[in-house]
Every structure is written in structure tokens, then in C-alpha cells.
């Protein structure tokens, strides 16, 4: 009996943590809609970008594109290891930054890369996290 109570309590924990889940899902759906209306290429949503980090990361680089992606569930180092591995398999990825505090991935691509939200989204979902929104900058 105690075990059952424990399990039920566990399932209710995320609701106690915050109520971001529904909001995040709404963002995700919005992002998907936007992607589809753009032919599945890019998403531009309100995402808080750390400009100083972006500047530092792209210093000395040119002909690049940077995708900044909000990710749900990226709360620990281990959670993000798989994302780093998955994205770095792409030869057009120049660099990648994981921001655990903001829950963001900053992926620097060679300018040849046609950044596709669905491709990025699939990689994140395959790793067990959920993408929220994305913004692409060309430098």
C-alpha cells in the first residue's frame, strides 16, 4: 500500500515543480505549425538568447548559421550528453553549446546547412527530450 502511495506521489511531482508543461507544449505546437507553414525549414519564436555567449561562440567565424533551440527536460549533464553526440554526427555542425540553466542548445552550422526545424526536433525527441522553440541567426 505504501508503495502505491509512493508511486502516485511520484507521478504528481512535475505538477508541483512548475506548470510549464502545458505552456511548453503550446509553444511546441505553435513552433510546429510555423515550421509546416514555412515548408518545414525554420522556426522563429520568442526565445531568450544569451547575446554575449552567442558573440563569444561565433567570434572569428563567418558564413555560419546558428540555431538556438529551447529544450524541455534538459536538466542534467547526462541528459544532454546524447544531444551533443547526436548533433555532432552532422559534419556541418561547427560547434555546439549546452546551456543547462536556460534549457537551450546553441548549434553552430556551416552556412551550407539548410536548417530544418523538423530535423532538429527529431534528434531532440529521439534523445528523450522535447524541443520548445527555435530561432536561427545567420552570421
Amino acid at each position: 500500500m505504501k508503495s502505491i502511495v509512493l508511486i502516485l506521489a511520484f507521478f504528481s511531482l512535475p505538477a508541483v515543480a512548475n506548470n510549464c508543461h502545458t505552456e511548453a507544449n503550446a509553444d511546441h505546437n505553435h513552433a510546429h505549425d510555423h515550421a509546416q507553414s514555412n515548408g518545414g525549414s525554420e522556426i522563429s519564436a520568442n526565445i531568450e538568447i544569451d547575446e554575449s555567449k552567442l558573440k563569444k561562440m561565433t567570434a572569428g567565424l563567418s558564413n555560419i548559421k546558428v540555431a538556438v533551440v529551447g529544450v524541455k527536460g534538459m536538466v542534467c549533464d547526462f541528459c544532454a550528453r546524447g544531444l551533443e553526440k547526436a548533433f555532432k554526427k552532422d559534419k556541418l555542425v561547427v560547434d555546439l553549446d549546452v546551456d543547462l540553466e536556460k534549457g537551450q542548445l546553441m548549434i553552430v552550422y556551416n552556412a551550407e546547412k539548410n536548417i530544418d526545424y523538423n530535423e532538429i526536433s527529431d534528434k531532440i525527441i529521439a534523445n528523450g527530450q522535447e524541443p520548445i522553440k527555435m530561432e536561427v541567426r545567420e552570421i
Partner: protein
Amino acid sequence: MGIVNFLIFLLTLFISNVVHARPVSYPGGHTFMSKSNASYDSLYYHYSPTFKYSVGIESVIDKRINKKYAYARSTRLINRMNTKSSQRNFYAQGGISSNGFGHYFYGIHGDWETRRLFSGFGIKKTVVDDSQNDFERFVLLGIAPYLGGYGDLHSWLMVKSMRNSAMDNWKSYPVLRFFKGSFLVEAGYGQNTKWDAHLMYRF
């Protein structure tokens, strides 16, 4: 093996993917784990084809029955919830011993964590020829004294409470967890439980 136990065992091992999912590791990830406590020493390797489950082999030196054996085992994520600041996972696990179908285990475990807080629990039943059964439960609570960035050394101060069939009641003891990159080290010590150590390397 009683029919009810057997059905629970099968359900645990092959529980549907339909529900939800999380990596036991990330897709294509390999993991080595070593555990040592008052009950057993073990070395466990598992591979995760997807983030939803892992399959592996565990070599065990069982101190309670003074035997060595191996488990073919599987862990499956049956539910995961991601939020912007937390993740909650719920797993089922099961394994069959090299001693035969009469020696097996099944159980569930779960965790919920933010960058600052961690909580986890586990329930595991081990059956040895329907005679020497063990029912093990634990609860683990932790707090990170500081918030590390990606690639930093992460530290957790934790308290583990556990009970198995050999114990009269629950025992609690402090646990320290450190991880950096692909390495995790966890160690706890209690007067009654003695050392409880766990090493992990993921690649």
C-alpha cells in the same frame, strides 16, 4: 516460479513501448556500472538501442547466499515527463539469472529531478527458486549545493533510506554523488548498511 510472479515478470520485461519513454542511456549509448554494498558486488554493462530501453548483462557476487551468477537484464522506461525545469522518469526492470528460470528479479524505479533537487525510489523483488525471496525498497533524496554548467563537476548531497528482507526496519544513511562528463561516482555509508558504492561510465 508462481504464475502471478511469472506474469508480473513478463510484464516488466516486455512492457509496451506505447506508454512514453526516456533513455536509460541515450540512443546507441553504452554504460558500465559497478555496485558494491552489504548484499552484493556487481558489474553491469548495458546498451540502449533507443532512449526507451536498455539490455545488458550483470555479473553478481551475492554475499547473502555466497554465490556468483549473472543476470541477463533489461530496463525499460515506461513513462517520462519533461518540463522546462524538471524531468520525471518511471522505469520497469527485470532479469533472469544464469542459475535458471527459477532465479529472477523484477522491479520498478523512478526519479524526478530539477537542477537543484533530486528524488528517486526503487522497489525490487528477487526470487530464488521460490524460497529465498528478497524484497528491496529504497528512497533517495538529494540537493545540489551549487548549480554546475555543462561539463562541470556536479555534486549532490543525498540521503538514502532502504530496507530489504534481511532488515527489521528502514535504514537511512548519507550519500555523496559526483559526476562529470561521462563519469559518475556515488558513495554512501551507514552503520548498519556499511558501504554502498556505485560507479558509472557512459559512452
